């Protein structure tokens, strides 16, 4: 009986010793909380709570254009991304909204004397080219790749960290654009060299066309929950420019040749929410 008890006690001690030593043999690092910088520099961001791997990512945004000169864009955008691993995703980007002319166009037409409300005689009596970069983006749909190399976290004053991703994306597809003539009237100028109906946008020529479109951009995802995130993106939508050259501005009907040179840019700021499914 005594021998039996001693044998059990010895076996228990051996098991305890084995359990104590086993972790150090199997990899003791995994058992200790990683250091975050006080003792040695960490190799990575510790305690990542969120993963993109194999997930579908849907983003809904309000989109507005930056650096507006002659045109502007306000609308909504949708992104759908299917992750392939943690870093890459197939990126589908769609945007639609109002592509309009800015007040600067109204001022240019007024100063040129095309607007009949301007008491001065119009000055557009020569032959020349209309203004470039007057294509207003109405809608675009593109497919591309998204690359998410950065995972991080930042601390607000509350000391609670906010986890985030930074990503870049690029794609190709189609852009539906309204190409506007800024100085070319729908009809021939009147006796005062004013554009008949030139106080309204319908007095000038415009054309809606579908062109090949590209986009490059980047964004920030601020995680709220495993499902929800706040999203901020910048996407520069590019498409071939088009405008009229050799226009007889005084008698524009039947004159002018369509010139395609250069690329128009519509940089969009996208603010919205994302869903990780």
């Amino acid at each position, binding site marked *: 009986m005594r021998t039996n008890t001693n044998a059990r006690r010895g076996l228990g001690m051996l098991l305890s010793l084995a359990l104590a*030593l086993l972790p150090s043999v199997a990899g003791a690092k995994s058992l200790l909380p990683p250091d975050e910088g006080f003792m040695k520099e960490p190799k990575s961001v510790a305690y990542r709570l969120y993963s993109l791997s194999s997930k579908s990512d849907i983003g809904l945004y309000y989109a507005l254009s930056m650096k507006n000169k002659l045109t502007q864009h306000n609308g909504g955008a949708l992104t759908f991304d299917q992750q392939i691993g943690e870093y890459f995703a197939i990126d589908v980007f769609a945007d639609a909204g109002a592509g309009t002319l800015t007040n600067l166009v109204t001022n240019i037409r007024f100063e040129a004397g095309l607007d009949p409300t301007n008491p001065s005689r119009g000055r557009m009596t020569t032959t020349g080219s209309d203004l470039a970069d007057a294509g207003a983006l109405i809608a675009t749909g593109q497919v591309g790749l998204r690359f998410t190399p950065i995972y991080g976290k930042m601390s607000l004053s509350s000391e609670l960290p906010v986890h985030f991703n930074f990503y870049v994306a690029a794609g190709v597809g189609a852009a539906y654009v309204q190409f506007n003539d800024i100085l070319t009237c729908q009809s021939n100028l009147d006796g005062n060299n004013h554009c008949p109906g030139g106080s309204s946008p319908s007095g000038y020529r415009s054309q809606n066309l579908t062109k090949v479109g590209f986009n490059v951009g980047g964004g920030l995802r601020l995680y709220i929950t495993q499902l929800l995130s706040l999203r901020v993106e910048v996407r520069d939508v590019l498409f071939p420019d088009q405008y009229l050259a050799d226009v007889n501005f005084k008698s524009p009907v039947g004159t002018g040749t369509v010139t395609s040179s250069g690329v128009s840019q519509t940089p969009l700021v996208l603010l919205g929410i994302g869903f990780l499914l």
Partner: protein
Amino acid sequence: MSSRLSPVDTALKNLLSHPAARAALLACGALVLALPAQADPTPGAPASGGLTPVTAAPEVPAARSSGPKTAAQAEALDPILGVKLGTSGPRQYVHVLIRRKERDEGKNEFSLNESLQVNGKFTDQIGTGVDWLYHLREAFAFGLGGTWYEYRADSAFTEDELVTKAKQQPYTASALLMNWEAHAGFELSPIYGKFAWFNSGVVQFGLYVGSALGLASTEVELRPADPNTGRGRTFGDTGFKPVGLFDVGYRMFFSEHWALRAEIRDTLFSSDVQTINGCTANDLQAMTSGDTSHIAATCNQNAFLDKQADGNTAHDLLKDPSSDVLNDFAFNLALSFLF
């Protein structure tokens, strides 16, 4: 040998002599022994000895356990954060983000930056600047700085579209250029963090906002360059303007001493233009007509490259008084040295 029992002992003896009472007592003992085993919160954990593996461990672990949890409860998600509650139950892990070991407090920071105007409708500017900051506190700094704009001109849109095609030019006040600006201000950096580029390393960063007041020397472009004659752009001085600066930026630390800053800086100034090269519209009219007797002494005629052509343009710019509040948004990229 006889012994004398107390009344209580006698009562207990009589009670335990009953078989049913003995069985009940044994059952109670077994239950008491079994309870600690059931309360073990970590199924599969070593019974004794060794280290406890940290799996979903918080950086600051929860202080207490709220009792046994089922597997379903352990998988339950927090309704706000959406993260697993774990075996600690509804008590939340406080997930503290530890600051980097190097402190900014008490340090000087010198920055060399390149500035690129990003919202230029009528103008384009590229500058080189120097900033000095003293970090009085970890999240507060003050300092001085300035930028010299080595490239400043009307934009391609102004020169190629408005001037060449539409025969128009922007109002003077909307197309002012900065020669240089100097400022003094402060900076707050309430947000700090870190990110990983893949898994190859960690970069510590801080987000900051700043504000400053200063002075800028301004000018306006009179004529675009003429490639036929080889003449460059001509400019006219429009004087000093007080400026306000607001910036939002991102400071990435690569070592104890070196950091990279990326910021958006808004330089805000009122651009009421009354004179060009010290000349009023009347001075310029007199100058271009050759009537030098009606030109004020403050008018620097020699500053015009071509008194006739530049004088006429300057007169056109001043004859319609204009004022505007300009926001020059610039993207600044700076290399900082902290010591």
